[in-house]
């Protein structure tokens, strides 16, 4: 039995039927003409809620930095100093002619790092490297939250001004992922402030385990290495200098060992935390080939370049974790991956190198809370 259109036009004299039809037509025409505006308002409301959360996160990160500065004896105008550092920007070099681009990026990044570090040192001149690195890391978190807040606010205001439903829908679609990253950054404040190891520090933790009771020397900025006799091979173990929050310069360290130290390694083994896919278990260890290192790509380029030029096999061991786990305090599951990683290193050494060989082992990641 089908419903005919004639049913919408009642022929009987029932007043209820007539009222219902009127309501139906009112709603139908309202949605026809104002549906889009209604949807725009609904999306604006949900984005403004998210924007407030991002603003709270950003304000909290700034408050934490100011508290940290005051606790460490800074007497100047902390608010304006912190605002200046948070707004510090970096302009990427032109890529129309890509030759030599990595060198230019490295130069610009090193200028930025030096500038921020000298500014931070001038604020806390009496403090040790750990305190300086904590402040640098907190500033990085706050700068990232500042960008998130300003970009979301920009599209929110443009969408509101122009009532552009499609722009707002795109913003609404990316918001859950964006909020997850904001949540991760906020959760990173506490462990960084207390110099606790973060999930990304698993690489330096494995390297530190190999370096225990061995002499360590500085090899590049914020980077140390040590010679370790292990399974009748000589391991050159590299990691960022801890317990300060550094990532070091593993690319420069490997270049130095090969070019200046005259080392001819039989293999380079890189250990790093890697982002897991949804459904994968935290702390799962996987092995592969290539340079296991994140960041903007300068170190990765240098390591790939020197490995391919000298025909050195490049092995990667990764420990899987989520973005939140990577930048917040380390979890038990990640710590429990250390013996598994050491087993993989043993296997690679026994099967891919010979006794007496030299092997470079790099623990990649942020060394906050991880000594050596």
């Amino acid at each position, binding site marked *: 039995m089908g419903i005919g259109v004639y049913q919408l036009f009642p022929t009987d004299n029932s007043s209820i039927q007539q009222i219902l039809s009127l309501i139906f037509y009112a709603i139908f025409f309202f949605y026809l003409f104002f549906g889009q505006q209604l949807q725009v308002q609904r999306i604006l409301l949900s984005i403004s809620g998210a924007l407030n*959360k991002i603003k*709270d*996160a950003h304000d*909290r990160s700034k408050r934490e930095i100011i508290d940290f500065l005051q606790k460490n004896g800074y007497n100047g105008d902390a608010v304006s100093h912190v605002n200046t550092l948070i707004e510090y920007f970096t302009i990427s070099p032109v890529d129309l002619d890509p030759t030599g681009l990595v060198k230019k990026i490295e130069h610009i990044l090193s200028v930025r790092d030096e500038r921020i570090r000298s500014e931070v040192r001038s604020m806390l001149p009496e403090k040790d490297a750990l305190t300086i690195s904590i402040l640098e890391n907190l500033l990085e978190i706050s700068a990232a939250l500042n960008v998130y807040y300003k970009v979301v606010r920009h599209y929110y205001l443009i969408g509101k001004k122009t009532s552009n439903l499609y722009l707002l829908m795109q913003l609404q679609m990316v918001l859950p992922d964006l*909020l997850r990253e904001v*949540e991760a950054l*906020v*959760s990173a*404040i*506490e*462990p960084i402030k*207390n*110099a*606790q*190891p973060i999930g990304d*520090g698993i690489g330096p*933790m494995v390297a*530190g*385990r190999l370096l*225990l009771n061995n002499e360590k020397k500085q090899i590049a900025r914020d980077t140390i290495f040590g010679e370790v006799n292990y399974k009748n091979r000589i391991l050159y173990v590299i990691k960022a200098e*801890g*317990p300060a929050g550094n990532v070091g310069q593993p690319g420069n360290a490997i270049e130095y060992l090969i070019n200046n130290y005259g080392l001819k390694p039989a293999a380079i083994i890189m250990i790093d935390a890697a982002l897991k896919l949804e459904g994968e278990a935290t702390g799962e260890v996987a092995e592969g080939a290539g340079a296991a290192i994140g960041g903007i790509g300068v170190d990765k380029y240098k390591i790939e370049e020197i490995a391919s030029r000298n025909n050195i096999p490049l092995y990667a061991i990764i420990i899987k974790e989520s973005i939140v786990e990577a930048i*917040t*305090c*380390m*979890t*038990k599951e*990640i*710590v429990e991956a250390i013996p598994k990683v050491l087993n993989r290193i043993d296997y690679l050494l026994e099967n891919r190198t010979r006794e007496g060989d030299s092997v470079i082992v790099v623990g990649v990641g942020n060394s906050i*809370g*991880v*000594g*050596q």
Partner: protein
Amino acid sequence: MANRLFKGQKQFKVVTIEECLSCKLKMKRPFKINDYVYKEGEVCQKCGTKMIISAIYKEELKY
């Protein structure tokens, strides 16, 4: 512990694990400021050698 900005955010406590490299005795205690992994720890109650901090990680607080 920090205020919760996001709904459903879990609360954690951070623990330090001290390990004796000779007799493998492990000791768990709350994290203290200035603790870091591979820092020298307390004297081992079993064999008397110096322990090291072998791990620092967070544990979920259950109410």
